Structure formats: C-alpha cells, structure tokens
C-alpha cells in the first residue's frame, strides 16, 4: 500500500474545531482519531500540543481495513495450527492489530524495525511473507532471516533486549549521516508493558536520549505481562516515563489504526529529521492468551475482556467505512475471502515445512567455523551413519 504523507502532523497550541485534546475529556490521556463506534475525529492533540490527523484516500482506508482483517485471520490460523500440533507455540496478536498495522504502515521503506515475538502484523505490513516467522514457532529454525534484507529484525524472545539493538542501530544511522531530511532513516523498537521494567529498556532510553538517536520506542501496552497486570510494572502512565529520560512521550489509542498511524508517522519523521527519540504508548489489550501455553482465565475476569471487545479495532473501522460509504458489503466479503485464501495457503505451507537434518545443528555457530565443532560434527555424522541399514 503506497502512501504519500497523509499523516502529517503539526504542532499547534490552539485547538481546531473537532479537535480532541488528550486528557481533556476525563478519558485516559490518549490520542484518538476513530472512536470505538466508528466516528472520525478530525484531529487530536498530544500532551505536548502536537496535533495529529490523517488524510487518507478511500482506497487507503480500505487498505488499512484489509490489513487488519488479513493480519487477524492469519494469526487465528497460526493459533489453530498450534492447537492441532503443527506449531510448538504461538504468540497471538489478537486485539493488537490496529497498533501493529498503524505503526507498521507508518514506516517508510528505508526504516528499520526491531520486533518482539508478537509483531506478526508489523511484519505483514513490511510486505514480508507471513510464513517467515512460522519456522521459529514450528521448531524447524530459530528465525533465520536477514534483518537488512527485510528491514525487519529477527524476533527477540528475551524481553526488552531488542530495544538496545534498535538503539545501537539508530546510533549507527546517525553516524552514517542518514538523518536530517525527508529521506532520512528512522528506527522503531517494539516492546510491551512488561518490558518497561527491564534494565535493557531503561538503558536504551538513556542511550537513545543522550545520543539523540533517530528512534521511536513503540510500546504496546496490552495491559498484561503474561498474568501480571500493568499495576505490577508501573505507578505512572508509561508514556510519561519518556519525560524523565528527556524525550517526548505520547499515549495513543492502540485499537485505533488511524491514530496509531498518525502518531507513529509523526514520531518517525521527527526521528529521521534529526529530532531524536520519542516514546509511543499504544494503549491496547491482549484479547487472547499470552501464548498458546497460557490460560488467561486464571488471572482476569470475563467482563474486562468484554469491555475491551467493545473497543475492537476492526469493528470500529468497519463501522466507519460503512457509515461513510467508503466500502460496502461486497468489499467486506471480498476481504474475508482473501483472508480465507491466504490462511489456507499459509496452512498448506506450514504443513509442508520439512524438519531440518540433525547435522545442520552444527551449522552457522561461527562465521569462521571452529575446528572443535568440525570434529564434533564429524563424530556425530559417523555415529548417525552407524545406524544406516539397521532397524532403528
């Protein structure tokens, strides 16, 4: 989906008509451009007076909807594959589609993303085949892709570790002189609310700040770190942490794809222009389990989930498209059909993934190899060959 620059944001202390000022409503202090009922808000002010707006064409609105539906459907397919024993584990993004599609589509081609292990939606928006991370969850590899080819790093399982990688990469962008203009490069680091307690994340805040790195910290606050609620990680809204580190923070409605796009595009453009890092807290909810190994009924009540169900990112986009007559039923049916086709295709390819040959476990330990390892490999090969022709 090619876009021009529909997410241009301007700083304005003066509220324009139909501009919603964050925090002025008694609601959580968040930037919102599309209400849960599907009403468009023309612009919204961030805590520092930045005015956020989007100006998409109808085609682009439909494109965002398509992304949301596709991403949810592929995610559901992966969950099903795990339930059927075809994946060892799956970390579902259910409920977080808008935060991921909004931020993912806000990235420009030259921008670099550092994901956790749940950014399947961002990956999709980078134009990457959704099969790519499934090898990791099936257990046939450990990622295995080239971050520089896809401008999308490998999934990081250790919580928060990737934020430092993103910071170093962003420092490198600045050292390469690739900031300071429209064509500058920006970097985005994804992490969750639990990760904000990690030392690495706090260190990355310090580093990014003092080196003025072209970096956007994108925190999907999905309210839970496995079972632990947000209150176990913080006493202040997470976006306000940024102030203590010396850069701007903003909380956005993470179930609003338009607002997620607007704040991320603005933050990325600031970064690429040399204005340094910022923190986005995408306020959302993990509708499903932490992973397929988790049972959220043990630590949260159904009414809470239902309340968030009413804020569903796809339902509000569909309501908006319908009300504004941007899309009709035939469009929605066509999108659903595409999602079904792609998920079937994904399933077929997962089932066809071959197990790796055991001896490949010795591959790629070192770029320059190791004589010790060569010897182990040779012995292992010989040992395996000793079974050839036997009944075992």
């Amino acid at each position, binding site marked *: 989906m090619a876009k021009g620059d529909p997410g241009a944001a301007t700083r304005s202390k003066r509220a324009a008509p139909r501009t919603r000022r964050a925090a002025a409503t008694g609601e959580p202090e968040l930037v919102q451009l599309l209400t849960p009922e599907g009403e468009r808000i023309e612009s919204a002010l961030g805590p520092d007076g930045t005015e956020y707006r989007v100006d998409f064409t109808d085609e682009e609105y439909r494109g965002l909807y398509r992304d949301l539906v596709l991403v949810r459907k592929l995610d559901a397919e992966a969950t099903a594959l795990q339930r059927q024993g075809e994946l060892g584990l799956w970390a579902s993004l259910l409920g977080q589609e808008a935060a991921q599609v909004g931020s993912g589509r806000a990235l420009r081609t030259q921008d670099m993303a550092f994901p956790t292990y749940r950014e399947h939606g961002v990956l999709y928006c980078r134009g990457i085949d959704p099969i790519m991370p499934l090898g990791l969850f099936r257990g046939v590899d450990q990622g295995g892709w080239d971050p520089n080819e896809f401008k999308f790093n*490998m999934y990081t399982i250790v919580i928060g570790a990737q934020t430092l990688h993103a*910071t170093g990469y962003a420092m490198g962008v600045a050292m390469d002189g690739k900031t300071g203009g429209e064509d500058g490069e920006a970097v985005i680091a994804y992490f969750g609310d639990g990760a904000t307690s990690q030392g690495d994340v706090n260190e990355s805040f310090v*580093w990014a700040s003092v080196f003025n790195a072209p970096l956007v910290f994108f925190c999907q606050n999905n309210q839970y770190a496995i079972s632990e609620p947000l209150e176990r990680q913080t006493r202040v809204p997470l976006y306000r942490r940024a102030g203590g580190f010396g850069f701007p923070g903003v909380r956005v409605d993470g179930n609003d794809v338009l607002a997620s796009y607007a704040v991320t595009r603005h933050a990325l453009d600031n970064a690429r222009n040399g204005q340094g890092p910022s923190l986005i807290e995408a306020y959302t909810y993990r509708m499903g389990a932490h992973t397929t190994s988790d049972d959220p009924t043990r630590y949260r009540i159904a009414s809470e989930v239902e309340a968030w169900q009413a804020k569903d990112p796809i339902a509000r986009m569909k309501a908006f498209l319908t009300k504004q007559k941007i899309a009709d039923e035939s469009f929605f049916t066509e999108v659903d059909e595409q999602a079904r086709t792609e998920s079937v295709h994904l399933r077929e390819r997962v089932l066809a993934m071959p197990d790796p040959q055991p001896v490949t476990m010795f591959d*790629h330990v070192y770029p320059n190899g*190791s004589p010790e390892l060569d010897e182990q490999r040779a012995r292992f090969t010989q040992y395996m060959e000793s079974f050839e022709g036997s009944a075992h």
Partner: protein
Amino acid sequence: MATETLTLGKALNTGLRRALENDPKVVIMGEDVGKLGGVFRITDGLQKDFGDQRVIDTPLAESGIIGTAVGLAIRGFRPVCEIQFDGFVYPAYDQIVSQVAKMHYRSQGKVRIPMVIRIPFGGGIGAVEHHSESPEAYFAHTAGLKVVSCANPQDAYVMIQQAIASDDPIVFLEPKRRYWEKGPVDLEAPIADAYPLHSARVARSGTDATVLAYGPMVRTALDAATAAAEDGRELEVIDLRTLSPLDLTAAYESVRRTGRCVVVHEAPGNLGLGSEIAARITEECFYSLESPVLRVTGFDTPYPAARVEEEYLPDLDRVLDAVDRTFGW
C-alpha cells in the same frame, strides 16, 4: 624489522590505533574510553585522533554497551567494547550470551556480529573486590563466542587487530597485571602474515613436563620453568592464547613426549578451563601419561581480599610443587 619495546598496554593501544586506521567501520566504545583513555589508558589518545564518533564514551551501563554494539554491528559497524573490569561484565552477560553469541546461528549465517569485547581480567594488582576476577569459563562455555587471551606485548599488538578483523564475536581477555610489562613488538610485519589467532604456541621448549597457561599465568609458568631449569628439569611451556576454541594440538604433541602435564590458571579450579583441558589430554594422551594431569588454579572461593591474593593466586612455587607431584606419582 621495526621492532620497538613497548608495554603490553601500549601494544594494545597501538594495535587499536591500527585497527581504527585500517577500517572506518571500527568503533571503540565503553566507559571512560574517550577523553580519559580508559582507566588503564589502553585507549589513550584515540578519541583525540579519531573523534568521538569513533571512540565513544558511553553511559555507565554494561548491558547497554553490548546491546547497542549489537545494533551497530547489524548496521555494519565493527564495535570494540571495553568492559572496565572483569567483575563488571555480568550486567552485560545476557546480551553477550543470548544475543551476541547466538545471532549468527539464529539467522542461519545472515547476521554477523563482528564484535570484540575487551576485558581486563585477573588479579595481582591489589584491587578491591570485583576488580580481579577471571570469568573466562563463563564465556568459553558459550557456543557462538570465541575467547582469547594475550600474554605478551607482541601478541597483544597482533591479536587485538586479528580479533577486530575477525567476523566472529570475540571476548578478548587482557592480563591486567601484565599491562606494564615490556617486550619487543614488530610494528611493521603485516598482520595478514601473523601467527593465527586461534592457535596455541610453545613459549619455551622443554622435555620433562608440559605446563599449559594463558594470559597472566604465562609469565608465572615461564618463571617456574626458569627456576626448574636451575634444578635440572626442563619444562615445556605452552601459551594457549585461544580458550575457545581450544587449540591443544601442540599440547598433545608435547605431553606425548613429556608424559606429564600441569595446567595453570587464576580462575577457580572447579569446572574451570583446566578441567576441560585435563579431560581432553587424558583422552588424547592416555598411554603417554606418567601421571594424571594436574591443575594449579585459584581456589573455589570468591576472589579474596587483596592482602591475601598472593596466596590465592598460583605462583612459581605452586607450579613447581605440581610439577614435582607429577614426578612422584
């Protein structure tokens, strides 16, 4: 041959300077490495000559140093990170073990982390706690990392450049108490022709027993060999240089001749490098051994207070005592 006499510290400094000159992607980063030139002055003058984009004073957080260096490496830089003291590396342990070591493996060879992690290690300088430790086994135990240690100025000058030029992530252990020892350094011989980084080397030839050491203990082993020679016993001393992968080719050859082997290191004995080395030598040289392989190591205590470190650290007498025991078996 332009040979100069340099301290080990100055040899490292000169090697780092060469690396910065030869490759614009090399960056040095760490605490106090810039203006101050490092607490041991190993990076002295480098920021002045190469600028603060090449020699970077970082915030004071070791995980941050290594973690951001990973990102710089993905971007195409070749970071040389200084950890100020051995006992301060542990906050970075996760980044080193889970990220630096595994990135190439996980990516099936698509991501290289050509990082050097310099750590002044070992005791003998009368320091307060956390300043005298020998953490090499933690890193040598981790697949994906290589670990080396230099023992003399010539090796310091060459090995640091080889480590920086290598695409493998390398933990580079510097024998801090030998920083001030002087020796000849050939500054003109091309690094490409130098003795290979991951190879052990015979430091002194002998016929009666084999002593294996690395880093600060090579000097101790050589002193022990000198003393033994006065008693008519010729010790062969091998400087292991590379701790992961180990290169025991020369050691096997030596032990098959001498029939006796003593391994020396400062780190505690329990599950230290000496344990692995003893096991391998026993496997490879079983029929040549006249006695078990013995280890002379630090004790299985935390590194003790400085006033008793001389008793903790292996010294000439303890090495000779072990050699004597191999003859009394």
